[in-house]
């Protein structure tokens, strides 16, 4: 079975985070629900942001996250397909080729995507369901990088295949907006909402990041989770400079 949906993330091998920031190092005494959907009260995001035809998943994933940040904070929407593609072309030089997650995170932090800049990205242990759910709540979703098998082409639920997985389809970046410690994740990919089981994550994910941006504060001065982010920002500012 083939697919007309493009992927576009290079890499796909397990990364050893010896020098990267880990969310677990900065979490102390934060409350979180054991199941969360951060988009539950927000308008439905069904925009593929150019990913179906272009394979710009490495920028569309952040785009969905930024779109959510603006919605929660009550700001005007900044994310457009044109803006996402502009960032994608800036990274790959207009070649149409895939990008790596490190390239995207560096660009997001130094140049910004659709006017949003990262303060930092933190590694999350994607095999720790509590940490993933906590990160989803505390920092507004989690970015997941997969090396997808062909068997999930066209599927709205990514679960462990009963038999042959068809081999490797390719690298893919998605933004997870919902997480349940006992079940799995919901991710936005190509503007579609896809369920991903924890077993699938364990088998096919190769990186997970929660991000802190300059725009994750709402009108009340607090993040979605009720946290005052200044302390966390200050703690990581020197390390990520």
């Amino acid at each position: 079975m083939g697919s007309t949906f493009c992927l576009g993330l290079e890499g796909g091998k397990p990364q050893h985070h010896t020098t990267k920031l880990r969310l677990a190092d900065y979490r102390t005494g934060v409350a979180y629900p054991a199941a969360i959907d951060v988009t539950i009260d927000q308008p439905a995001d069904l925009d593929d942001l150019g990913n179906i035809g272009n394979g710009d998943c490495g920028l569309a994933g952040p785009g969905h996250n930024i779109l959510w940040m603006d919605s929660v904070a009550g700001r005007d929407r900044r994310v457009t397909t044109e803006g996402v593609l502009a960032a994608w072309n800036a990274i790959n030089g207009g070649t149409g080729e895939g990008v790596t997650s490190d390239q995207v995170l560096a660009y997001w932090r130094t140049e910004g995507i659709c006017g949003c800049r990262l303060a930092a990205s933190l590694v999350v242990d994607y095999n720790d369901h509590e940490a993933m759910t906590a990160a989803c709540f505390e920092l507004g979703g989690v970015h997941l990088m997969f090396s997808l098998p062909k068997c999930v082409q066209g599927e709205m639920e990514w679960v462990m295949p009963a038999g042959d997985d068809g081999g490797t389809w390719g690298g893919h970046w998605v933004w997870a907006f919902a997480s349940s410690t006992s079940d799995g994740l919901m991710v936005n990919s190509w503007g579609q909402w896809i369920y991903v089981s924890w077993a699938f994550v364990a088998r096919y994910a190769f990186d997970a990041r929660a991000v802190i941006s300059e725009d994750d504060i709402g009108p009340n001065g607090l993040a979605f989770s009720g946290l005052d982010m200044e302390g966390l920002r200050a703690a990581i500012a020197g390390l990520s400079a």
Partner: protein
Amino acid sequence: MKYATLLFALAATLSCKTTPTTPDSFFQAVVACTEDNTANPQAQQAVYQCLTNVVVGAYAGCLSGLVAGGVWTVNEVACLVRAYATSEAVNVNKGTATAAGSQALANANAWLRDEQVRYRRATP
């Protein structure tokens, strides 16, 4: 005649043994939360009372009872539990949680971890 009675009793016993016990209303239920199934004030009150007013450990039976009694649906109860867990976690992080709210968060989280409800967001 005695054999017939015995066979009948045996059959009845086996029949009873194969009758399924009342299934857990929530275990692996697939739930889609919407504004409709989280907006009923009476359901909100019933779920919150289960999460706060009962003796420790009995909240799960209380929540199951709301469904078993035919008062509220699995969707309504499951979605409200998750909604309370979220709002009370926000309150804790903001420093505005009450004792009842903290209890609701603890019970809601225990329930969410135990029941394995499968939350999905249905595409509109």
